[in-house]
């Protein structure tokens, strides 16, 4: 239990840990920086008991001064010179305050930069302090007798201009830096949290579109909670695919198995007709219905194969007009028998690279559907679009209710009013067309025409073939 609890805090393996530690760390860093910056930015002078090295430094400087000053007599100008020399040698700033006459000797230029009041304030102190100003740090006081005069020695240096010097001068710039840095860090956190979710969403969308093979691969390899979710998703997808596949397989298997008895039935009908019942209306009817079952089985099997993605594509290159000539002749012939008319528009001489059977079967199924519902006219319009083909099949029939348009390509889906045998084929024609177009990487969409009737638009990308 303890181990698992701790592992939840591991930011590599757990989202909980990452969010928790991130916020915790951010809060701590913010507090610390705020305190530090505010200390850096104040002009207040702080007194602290001097540390050991500071005291030693003070002592050394005092000893040196005393030793050098003790060799001969100095007047006050010479004392000033001596102070400067020692300061140079020690790389330190030395300051002598004389409480008797209130004068100050400095080893460095810039007495104007330095307000001496904080030092005077210490003149009666016995202890040694570290005095921190905004740009300097001094240690003192140390009482000294030079030339019979009592002095207070302070030793220190000017600090290099710190990073927060500019901040004091331009607070808005500091604000900008803080804003940008924190924004960057937070964006990093948000991005690291959301990136796997985006990946998961893509997989979910693909699945909703009907791609049952969609898996969240990248997410599932993660160790954290999103990774777990990804693996759960993949598991679910797997189960779903298996379920759908088995459903489809059952349909295909049944159709497969039905072929043998149907073959026998059809031969038996032939024998019965041969035995002198040639003209029996009932036998003719049985034959007709057997043929219908036959076509249905073929359609179910075709669809099952298209769906399973096991369709072998046989790419062939042919002139579009030659390719469609026979089909258009057939449809035109049938249309005439019903008193309807087919008009065809080609984009001129074009060679296409398609799987001829699939391409023709898609067009035939859509054309037959149009033929069924058209009142008088069916149109087939093909235009070149870029390197692809845009094919539109139009009829002047009743059209389809808008909410049913997208379901038009579902197997066995029939617009409710048309659920009779007069108009209906097997109910698989458009589903096969959609499958055939999809397996060639194209799209198929149905819409209602403004002037009435249905328009099925097929788009096949990059099928045009340049003869050269």
């Amino acid at each position, binding site marked *: 239990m303890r181990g698992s609890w701790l592992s939840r805090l591991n930011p590599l393996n757990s989202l909980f840990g990452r969010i928790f530690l991130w916020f915790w760390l951010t809060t701590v860093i913010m507090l610390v920086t705020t305190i530090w910056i505010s200390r850096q930015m104040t002009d207040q002078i702080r007194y602290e008991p001097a540390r050991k090295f500071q005291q030693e430094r003070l002592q050394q400087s005092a000893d040196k001064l005393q030793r050098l000053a003790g060799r001969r007599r100095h007047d006050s100008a010479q004392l000033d010179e001596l102070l400067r020399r020692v300061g140079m040698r020690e790389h330190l700033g030395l300051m002598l305050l004389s409480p008797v006459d209130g004068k100050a000797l400095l080893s460095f230029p810039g007495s104007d930069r330095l307000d001496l009041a904080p030092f005077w304030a210490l003149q009666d102190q016995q202890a040694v302090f570290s005095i921190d100003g905004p740009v300097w740090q001094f240690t003192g006081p140390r009482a000294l007798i030079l030339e019979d005069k009592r002095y207070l020695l302070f030793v220190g240096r000017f600090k290099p201009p710190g990073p927060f010097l500019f901040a004091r001068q331009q607070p808005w710039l500091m604000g900008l830096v803080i804003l940008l840095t924190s924004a960057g860090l937070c964006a990093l956190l948000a991005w690291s949290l959301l990136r796997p979710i985006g990946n998961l969403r893509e997989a979910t969308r693909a699945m909703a579109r009907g791609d049952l093979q969609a898996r969240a691969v990248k997410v599932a390899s993660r160790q954290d909670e999103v990774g777990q979710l990804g693996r759960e998703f993949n598991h679910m997808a797997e189960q779903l695919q298996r379920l759908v596949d088995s459903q489809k397989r059952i349909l295909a298997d049944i159709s497969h198995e039905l*072929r043998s008895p149907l073959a026998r039935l059809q031969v038996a009908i032939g024998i019965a007709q041969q035995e002198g019942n040639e003209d029996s209306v009932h036998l003719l009817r049985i034959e007709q219905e057997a043929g219908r079952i036959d076509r249905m089985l073929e359609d179910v099997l075709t669809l099952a194969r298209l769906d399973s993605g096991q369709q072998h594509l*046989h790419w062939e290159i042919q002139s579009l007009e030659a390719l469609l*000539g026979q089909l258009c002749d057939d449809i035109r012939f049938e249309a005439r028998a019903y008193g309807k008319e087919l008009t065809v528009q080609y984009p001129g001489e074009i060679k296409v690279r398609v799987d001829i059977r699939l391409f023709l079967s898609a067009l035939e199924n859509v054309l037959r559907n149009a033929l069924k519902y058209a009142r008088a006219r069916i149109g087939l319009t093909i235009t070149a679009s870029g390197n692809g083909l845009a094919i539109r099949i139009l009829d002047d029939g009743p059209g389809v209710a808008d909410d049913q348009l997208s379901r038009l390509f579902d197997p066995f889906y029939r617009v409710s009013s048309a659920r009779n045998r007069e108009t209906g084929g097997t109910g698989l024609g458009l589903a096969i067309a959609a499958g055939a177009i999809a397996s060639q990487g194209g799209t198929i969409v149905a819409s209602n025409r403004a002037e009435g009737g249905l328009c099925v638009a097929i788009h096949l990308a990059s099928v045009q073939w340049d003869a050269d």
Partner: protein
Amino acid sequence: MAQKSLLLIDDDTELSALLKNYLEPQGYRLTMAHTGPAGLDLATGGQHFDLILLDVMLPETDGFEVLKTLRRTHLTPVLMLTARGDDFDRILGLELGADDYLPKPFNSRELSARIKAICRRMELLPASSQQQCLAIDELLLDPATQKASVQGRELALTGTEFAMLHLLMANQGKLVSKQHLSEKIMGRRLSAFDRSIDMHVSNLRRKLADVQPKERIRTLRGSGYMLVEIR
């Protein structure tokens, strides 16, 4: 008309019995085999068959295997009974040298029409008006003996391929439409999906090219074929 002798290779014994009942009154003599090897033995065993009805889906040795082995030695016309709903079968069957195919289950009338068409193809040719030998470049065709040769080397053509070559040679230099070929050779109207003619032409081309790799049969805009002289 002499009684035609058919060999049926199909593992469905009930269907075979029904087919026997159906076809024998029409004047065919039907021999049956229920496995690939048994059918192959019969087909290559010296007995003459006018046509073999070969089911694709046989246990163990399938129909394609049988056809492939058969074609090494025999040019007996073969009608493949392919699985309905599998387009690939049809193309493969024709590629391997079947004369025609019929998706199973089939309408019995359709079956007897196909059988009749293939048998007529085989016997009509010698009896046709064009009995004389045809010769174009080094390509010779003799309808009387059903033999064709290139540069003196005999071509192993199936009946369908021979009939096709005959038709193309008789119309040398002229476009023969696919529609015409289908009606004359296969005995049926060409449908949009029917690739039989293309497959037979491609087999014929391959066999010609094996002897002399030059283009003799030209494709014209997908609508038909033309036999041309070698340049």
